[in-house]
Structures are given as structure tokens and as C-alpha cells.
């Protein structure tokens, strides 16, 4: 199938892009989800604003505490170490398993966050890393990833707002990942990420809604972990059926095990 037609704009600066945007605007970053959805005519666009020429959305800013990645940073750049890794290896590992290499060459971390697919990798990973989303619109604002993610395909992004960058605190703590997919490159049925350290963080996605922190499990790492996870799952994915619960429990346990080993 082919996409319905739309108007196309390719601004060359962030202010121009913000000026051109309105309530009906669709932003194009890497387009690796959007283009497929357009081609299948499950979504449509009136006006498409192509963000690919916005230099403000590219590049890296490093501080002693954090690395800020431009929203247009591709999965492949993270996979290949072409940008600094604040995560101690976690982000390249996650990037390397997103979809397929040719998709990773185009797909961007900012686009993935903006779409907020509940089966996608970056929302979960950035939640586990306690990242902050830097947003441009009528005003500039920053928001913790935890607040930014609202529900399946829903974030706090207002119409006309653009993710400029993502700030990721440096992590040196051990981490673990476990992902269940029906085949290589498919979206996750369950993805759990555990980052240890002084304040352990465990994030889970593949839920009905959004990536979630598992707070009971975080504080029960040396206690009755299984019960804590099950209690978390009842909140994180309340509509999960028996298979999904088994699957989530297994991925969370495996991610913790890897982090602790």
C-alpha cells in the first residue's frame, strides 16, 4: 500500500520548524515507524515537517554527570559507539537489538520516545537510566522520563512541541537486560532492564500502557523478590493475561540476575 498524500516541509532551523508547526502537524524524524504506518494507511498526515535538517537536534553534550544526545541520534550511532555512552554499555546493547540494522540506520532515539510505543526499547531503557527529556515548543522545558511517558502512544508532548535532546545521567552500576520477542527484531512482548547501584532501578515494558518502574522489586532485591515483582506487575500491566505475567516475571528475574552476576 501507499501513503495518502500530505504537504511536506523541510525547515532548516528549530525556530522555523516551531513556527511552521500547528495542531495538525506530523513530525518526521527517522520515520521508521511512521512511514510504515503511513504506507499501510493506518495513519495519515496533513502536513509533514521533516526534522532531519535541524542541526539543533543533532550532536552531543557531555558533562561530568551526564551525556545529552540530540534527538536525531540514530540507534546505529548508539550501537556503534559513534556517540559517547553514558550507560556503561547498556544503551549500545539495547540499540543493537532494535528492529534491524537498516532500520537502526534511520531510526532515532527522539522519534522512538515521541511515539512511545509500549513495546519499544528506548522508553524502557531511558526509564531505567533516569533520563530527562529536553523539549522545545512555545517555551523550552525539561521533563523526567517518568513523567514524560503517560500511556501507550501518549506522552506529555503538546501539539507543536519537539523533543530536542535526551539527557542521560552517567551510570557505572551493573545492569541486566532480558527481552522476549517472537522473533529477532520484533517488538518486545516483554522487556525488563535492571540497573543496580545505590538506588536500583528496574523498568519493564511490553505492557498494555507504557514502560513502568517496578518499585517494589527495586526495594526487595534481597528480600521476597518474586512476590514484589508480582505485586508490581499487578500495577504495571493489570490487564496482562497468564502468559504475559509469566513472561514478565521471567524477564524481570533474568534481568536482575544478569545485573547481579
Amino acid at each position, binding site marked *: *500500500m501507499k501513503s495518502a498524500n500530505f504537504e511536506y516541509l523541510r525547515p532548516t532551523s528549530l525556530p522555523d520548524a516551531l513556527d511552521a508547526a500547528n495542531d495538525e502537524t506530523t513530525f518526521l524524524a527517522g520515520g521508521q515507524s511512521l512511514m510504515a504506518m503511513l504506507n499501510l*494507511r493506518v495513519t495519515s498526515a496533513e502536513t509533514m515537517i521533516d526534522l532531519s535538517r535541524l542541526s539543533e537536534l543533532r550532536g552531543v553534550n557531555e558533562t561530568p554527570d551526564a551525556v545529552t544526545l540530540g534527538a536525531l541520534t540514530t540507534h546505529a550511532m548508539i550501537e556503534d559507539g559513534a556517540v559517547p555512552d553514558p550507560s556503561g554499555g547498556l544503551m549500545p546493547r539495547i540499540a543493537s537489538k532494535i528492529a534491524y540494522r537498516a532500520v537502526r540506520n534511520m531510526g532515532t532515539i527522539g522519534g522512538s520516545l515521541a511515539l512511545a510505543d509500549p513495546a519499544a526499547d528506548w522508553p524502557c531503557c531511558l526509564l531505567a537510566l533516569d533520563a530527562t527529556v529536553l523539549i522545545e515548543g512555545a517555551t523550552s522545558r525539561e521533563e523526567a522520563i517518568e513523567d514524560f511517558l503517560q500511556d501507550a502512544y501518549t506522552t506529555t508532548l503538546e501539539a507543536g512541541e519537539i523533543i530536542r535532546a535526551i539527557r542521560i545521567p552517567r551510570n557505572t552500576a551493573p545492569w541486566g537486560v532480558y527481552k*522476549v520477542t*517472537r*522473533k*529477532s527484531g520484533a517488538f518486545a512482548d516483554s522487556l525488563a532492564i535492571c540497573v543496580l547501584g545505590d538506588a536500583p532501578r528496574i523498568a519493564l515494558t511490553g505492557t498494555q500502557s507504557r514502560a513502568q518502574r517496578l518499585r517494589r522489586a527495586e526495594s526487595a532485591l534481597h528480600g521476597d523478590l518474586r512476590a514484589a515483582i508480582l505485586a508490581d506487575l499487578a500495577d504495571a500491566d493489570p490487564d496482562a493475561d*497468564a*502468559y504475559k505475567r*509469566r513472561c514478565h*516475571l521471567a524477564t524481570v528475574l533474568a534481568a536482575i540476575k544478569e545485573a547481579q552476576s
Partner: protein
Amino acid sequence: MHSETADRWIGKPLLRKEDARHLLGASQFVADLRLPHMQDVAFVRSASAHGRILSIDAGGAEPGTVWTLADLPTIHPLFAGPELGTFRNAVYPPLADGKVLFAGQPVAMCLGANRALAEDVASAVWVDVEELPPVIDAVNALAKGAARLHDDWPDNGFIHSVITGGDIASVADAPVRMRRRFKMNRQAANPLETRGVVAYRDHRTDELVVYTSTQGPHVMRHGLSIALGIPEHRLRVVAVDVGGGFGGKNRLMPEEIAMAALALSVDHPVRWIEDRNEHLIASVHAREHHYDLTVLAERDGTILGIEGSIHVDAGAYALWPSGPFMETSMAARNLPGSYRIQHLNIDTHTVATNKAPLGPYRGVARPGACFAIERLVDELAHELGIDPVEIRHRNLVGPTEMPYRTGGGLRLDNGDYPTALDKAVAMIDLPAVRARQAAGEPDGTRIGVGFACYTEQSGHGTVEWVKRKSRVVPGYETATIRMMPDGSAQVLVAIQSHGQGLETSLAQIAADGLGLTPAQIVVRHGDTSISPFGFGTFASRSIVFCGGAVTKAAAALAEKIRAVAAHLLQTTPDLITLRDGAAHGPQGSIPIPEIARAANIRPEALPEGMAPGLEATATYEPPESGGVFSYGVHAVVVAAHPETGVTRILDYVVVEDCGNLINPMIVDGQIIGGVAQGIGTALYEEIPYDETGQPIATTWGDYLMPCAPEIPSFRIGHMVTPATSTEHGVKGMGEGGAIAPPAAIANALTDAFRDIGAKFCETPMTPRRVSDAVALARGEE
């Protein structure tokens, strides 16, 4: 890689002649055709699973851009399916005729300067449908009071037939009776090239030219001729490069008829390229068998008989030419598999549902039958406490019993099934697998090993197809070999090579027959205007039938070449041999090009009374019309996670006997490709429908195609038992690889969880199904 003067090309792993164009990106598929003024077509498809069309609103489209059935020239009904009085026909209209019977059924066609514009037109067309209750489950579809698809049928059965062998009553008091249910779910063939049609009127030749991605251009022309009421000499059907078929391109589909009819109605070429979404919802669907079987056995594991039922979910219509009953009868008749099971009583139901119509896909029925019998054998082994390898040995047909008539009426011609099993057991290194299994995996996954035996009927001819009551009886193939004045030769055939490498292997056969090299031979196929009539490439038949026809035609041509040579060398034809590009007599040799030159352009050099020219046409059907049986054993080791249900293949062994090999490299390629598809059936691929009759898997995001990480490296062990009734001792083998993997993998999973008795009875064995089976066996929720 081989000497150009080798005296035998048959049996050599000759690299393929067809590779060069593909590797350069210079091949030509239907979508690559470029014709002036061509317009694209997008189909409007039913959104409803079942309903009555009240109206079709063109959505304000320009006149002439939206076409419904009423706008096309009269199309004659194409009756499909077996010629049996008990088979209820359901003619598939090229565009919906009053009712829609599945979501995805073509309703109207829209023209545009390109595909996107045609889709814009299609998206504005509004089809008002009075919804009727959808019929989704093949078993429930036969219940009293179920909604009916076809108003003139008493129920939803295409046909009910009892397939019997032996006398099941004679073993009714068998000491062991074990009942199991199995299901093999619905798939589509999913060649990487989807279907596609380009059609136009050629005023110069006064032909309707239909380029279509098909496995059998001549048969499709015949069907189009009936449907359109156009004589066949005014129809040309061409299959250019075809990007895979696997059975899915061996039926005349409504889109092909509608496109041909549209081309008659407009004065420019029209093109339709199926997209993947259309392929998944409206191409030839396959499988979807329900088995409810009881095995009757002795306590020592000797299987006496099988009784029970098979329901095949056949979808809404009968596809031309064969319809859906072949699937059902083959499933029942193949149930005894490789075993000495003489008593069979299977109640079969071929059922109409509100789904896309069923047709062939690599293995046709046998992946389901193999899944059922090989799972039954393992279940029986576990029930009786017998090792799965041992119980197979107790039941396999032995080499001294060949030829052996199975309980399903199939005549297994020859081979050594027990040795194949032993070889597979040895290759998989069973003791090492058991040791690893006992040691346990650090990540908590479970290891299991599974075996599956299979047979593959191939090269079956007139008698077998007549037994199936086939409307078209593909009992032979034809080949013409034409030698040009320079001694090079064309082989003109009616099969269609779409990955099987027949341009290479048929050239090897012709080269041996004519004393030439394959490089001096070109094989042309896929075009009704270049070859004599034939049926096409399907049912693992091309190397047996077409290879045989090429052998016969080459022999006839060689006879004439020898006669000319004898005349020129002043000897007798029986003393002439053809090899290395020359005719050799007792006293000297003469290059074949000189003979070709004489025969074609210097007739005065020919013996008196000999007709000029060097061309021969031959038809071929093997004398044993019931077919020859390739066979084999698959052995697989899997690792499965008990909670997530994710299953990985650690090792895969294929032991296989398809008689003599024309090109061993191509044979191995066919085996590996077939097994990969079988792994897709086993673990990944499925087209489910929801309760409203909507297909769930409509993209390759939902329908999972196995990729390189999902497919292991294979190890293949060959056995060679030449067929006695075919040319060169070959047997067909294109489908075999796809038959056994679902059974072998399910048996491996069963083995992995044997301690808790988890049951794996439905394909694909997705992570969810595996995890659920384990949980059920553990008594969890």
C-alpha cells in the same frame, strides 16, 4: 568448476545459469515491466467477513476509474474442485457478486496513473454491506443452526468423505486406544515476490497478453480462456522471472481474471502488483487442519490402525482448478506415513468458512498429516514407555517389503526407511544430547530432541490425478529441443522455474543427451508462445516429468544427429556416439555444429529422404503413474524456556533419499529452503482470525517470517535409492523439506518437557503456546 569436456553432466553440482541476471539486479519480475500508458490498479476489498452488498458508491471518482463486476465484460463461471457429484461447488467471482464471503475479497478495482493514485480512488469507494454472522471455526461451522456461506447449500460442507483402508473393525479390540487432537494453523505461501499482473491487448498479434506471476502459464491460459470466452490462440500468458511460488501461484485467482477482463475493456496496459497486506488476507491460504484421531495399537507399540476425523478449513470458495478437497484427501491418505499401518478410517470434512480460500503450499496436506502421525507415534511411545526411536523401528516399512501399499492406498516404491532413521539418530548424536539434557542448562531452558519420518509422493501421473478426480490431469510434460545451425540448442518447456534452478538442471540433462555442454544449451520457459503445452512447476514434478520429456526429446534429436553423422562418416547410426560436442564413429568424428549446419541450412548434405531441420518434441509420463516416493527423517534439538516459551533450534539434521540427483547443489538448496519454511510453520507463521472474521496477521510485523537468526545451519545426510520407473532414477523432492519440521520440533518440545508431560499439539508453537502448554502441565493457571 567442472571440465567443459566432462562426458556426463548429470550428477554434477553445476553452478546455476540463472544466477547472473539476479546478481546484477537485471532480472525482470512482473513489477519491473514498463509499458507506455500503463495504469495501476488498486482493488477495493471487503472489510466484512460475511455480508450482502447493498450498494457500491464510487465516491465521486472520475468515470472509468472504478470497475465493479457489472462494468466488466461477461465472465463465465470457472467450476473448480474435484469432478465428484458429492462436491458442492462454490465459484469464486473475480469481483464480488452480491455477497462478500471473507474480509479481503475483491469487490471493485480502481485505476490510477500510479498505485498511490489508484489507492486514493479505492479509499473513497464506499461498499455498503448488510452484515451476516461470520463462520470462523471449521468444526463449529457444521453444527446445526450455523450461519451458511452459500445460500444453496444445506450446510457449510464442501464435501464429506470417509477415507478408508483395510478394515478398521478387525482391530476394534486392540489392547491400546489412544486419542489425541492436533491442529495445524493457517498460513500463506509468502513468496518474496507477491502476485502481480500486467495485461494489455496486443493489436499486432490480436492477442490479449497477460503477464502474471504464475507457476503454470499454459494452465492459466486455459482457465482464462474459459472465464473470458476468448479462444486460447488469442491469449498469451507469460510468467517472466517469478520470485517464488511454493504452490501459492498455482491457482487462477480472481485478480488475474479481473485484470484480464479490464485489459479487454480499456485501451492501455493495466498493472496490479499485490502488496503484502493483500497477500496475507487474500492470496492462496494454506494448511488449517483439525485432527481428532485415535490410534489403535498393541502393547509393544505395533500400530494397527487409525480412526477419527479431519476437518480442513477451506475458506469461502473453490480455487481453480483443483478446489480444496485434494488437501483433505491427501491429509487422510498420508496419515499412515512411513509406517506399516493397514487399517484406516477417517471421516473427512472440507468446510467452507468466511476466510480466504485454501490452496496448495509446499508439502500440500502432508505437513499436517506428518504432524499428526509423528506426534501420535511419540505420544504412543510415551504412553507405553517405549523409546520414540524404538517405536518407530517397530512400525517403519522395511526395505524388503517394498513396494509397499500403505493403509492410505499409496504405493511406496523403494528405499530403506529404518536405515534413514538410524542415520539421523547417529548424526544428531543422541547420547550427547541426552547427556546435555541430564546436565541441565544454566539459563533454565530445557533441551529436547525430536524425530520425524516422512514420505513425499512425487512424479505422480494420470492414474493418481484421475483418482483425485482432478479437473485438469497433469499426467505428462512436453519438451521441444531445437538445434540451431551453429549447433547450440534451445530447450523449450512448459514448466516454470522460479528458484528451482531448472534452467540449469534441464540443461544438464539435455547436454548429456546431446553430447553438448550446458553452456551450449538455453532453457526457455514460462511463456505460452514459446513452448508446447504443459502444466507447470508444482507437486515436486518438474524434474521427473519435464526432465523425462527433455531426456526423450534429446534422445529423439540425438537419433537424427547420429543418422546425419553416420551418413557423413559413412557408417551406421548405431556405431555413432555423441560426446564432447562431436559425433564419434569407428573411423572418425564430426563436430555437432557441422551436423547442425547440414541439417538446418545445407539440406543437400543430408541422407536421401531425410527431412531437414533439427527439432524434436516429446511428451513424458513415468510408467508408474502412482508416483515415486522420496523419504527421509528429520532430527532436531531445541532449547525452550519454560516460562517465556521462547524456543531456539540448536541442531538440525536431515537424512534424505530422493533417488539419483541431477544437481546435488540444487537438491541441497531445495532441502534447506524447504526445512526453513517448515520451521516457519512450526514456530512462527500463522494467520489467525478474530471472532468477527477479521484476519489478525495483515503485515509482516504480525505474520512472522523466519530470518537468518531463526534458522540454523543444517546437516544433510544423503541416501540414494534410484527410482526404477523414472528417467535417470530421479524422484521429485521440492516439498519434502517442509513436511517434517513441525512434527520434529513438536516432538523435541515434548521431549524437553517429558517429565511434566506438556503437550504440543498445535502449530505454530509460539512462545505463548509453549509457555501455556508448560503451565497447563504444571497445573498452573
